[in-house]
């Protein structure tokens, strides 16, 4: 699962973005938008809002590129954290909460039925297997933190799991996942 290996070097890409080359934006979008969009969509769940957040995120990558500090981590990490934080902010904003309340469960049921689907949450190749290899409590923490955008203190409050335990479970989830996915 090293999808990202055929990409040009992230450092090179950063340099080209800093030089404001239009083709760098093109490249950035073509190669990273779906990974970023997936993580946004899972947090905000609404497609229209996810599109908005995706656009805001890419504008931020482009406009704030000088804020990226390579000594503190990879470019992708910087991008996904910007996207996740934008998504979480969006989710928290009041008008969205209101909109979600008035959503009707019936609509989703019909949509899915008409598409003739079976339940499938994490659809990437190998990702279902990777998640299946995790223990339930590890999967839970990973899902809450990564896919739903919960903060660790929210999980602590809502589910009574101590912070230290959340941290070690999150670690074990990622350690086990990368063993299964062969990430080195």
């Amino acid at each position, binding site marked *: *699962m*090293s*999808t*990202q290996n055929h990409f040009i070097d992230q450092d090179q890409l950063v340099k080209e973005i800093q030089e404001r080359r239009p083709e760098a*934006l*093109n490249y950035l*979008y073509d190669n990273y*938008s*779906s*990974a*970023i*969009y*997936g993580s946004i*969509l899972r947090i905000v*769940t*609404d*497609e229209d809002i*996810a*599109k908005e957040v*995706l*656009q805001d995120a*890419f*504008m931020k990558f*482009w406009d704030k590129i000088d804020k990226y500090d390579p000594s*503190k*981590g990879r470019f992708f*990490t910087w991008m996904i*954290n910007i996207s*996740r*934080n934008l998504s979480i902010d969006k989710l928290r904003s009041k008008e969205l909460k209101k909109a979600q309340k008035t959503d009707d*469960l019936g609509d*989703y049921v019909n*949509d*899915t039925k008409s*598409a003739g*689907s079976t*339940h499938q*949450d*994490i*659809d*990437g190749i190998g*990702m279902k297997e*990777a998640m299946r290899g995790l223990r339930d409590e590890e999967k839970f923490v990973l899902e809450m933190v*990564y*896919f*739903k955008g919960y903060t660790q203190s929210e999980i602590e409050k809502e589910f009574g799991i101590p912070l*230290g335990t*959340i*941290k*070690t*479970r*999150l*670690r*074990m989830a*990622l350690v086990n*996942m*990368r063993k299964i*996915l062969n*990430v*080195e």
Partner: protein
Amino acid sequence: MNTEEYISSGILESYVLDQLSQAERMEVEEMAQGHEEVRKEIERIERSIEALAFGTAVTPPADVKDKLASELNLEETPVVSISGNGSASPFLKYAAAASVLIALGSATMAFNYWSKWKSAEGRLSDLVAQNQQFADNYNTVNQQLNDVQDAVAIMNNSAFSRVVMNGTDNSPGSLATIYWNKSTQDVYLNIQELKELSQNQQYQLWAIIDGKPIDAGVFDSGSSRLLVQMKSIGSGAAAFAVTIEPRGGSESPSLETMQVVGNV
């Protein structure tokens, strides 16, 4: 803390996912500067998150890219030579352009529907999970409420004698209360303050009848219930006491371990 312990505490995962406070973040950055293993581990975690993101990627609707380009004033000037060599007839040109447009249009629509369907599925399973969570929470709370209601009924029932057991010299801070119904012989225990025991130990309750200790059952320190029902005790008990015994209880009490005692 050595680096191994530091890494296994899980703080680096939280760092990569941007879930730390400013102070914690600076601490991690300092550790990373000083320790090669920490730096390497951070990069491994970053690559795991990357794999997770690419493994769960969803293609965004096609219109976002155009909007983005126009928003950033980066609209690409199409590299189509307008002059051409003029060999194709205008009709063919238009027909070709039209068919390309139609193909593009239907691909976009197919894509749009596909991603709508995907996101609907995601939302549905989120809702199902949320629902399950609510149901679980409700059951837990309901169970706790029943528990409390039962306990309050017993505590307020005048048929039950209340025997407060205070801490002995072994454990002056300990406190537990017995609710004893002499006619039905029911005995309930309310633990207010008893220390945690090791896995191979248990508390044992004794009723003192005619100066002799009678076993009234064992219990663990960590019970979350307000009242724990113990063995039935008939009339004649003059006092209740709790000792620490090997798991499963003893025939006769280890008096030197007595934690609380109270006279009826």
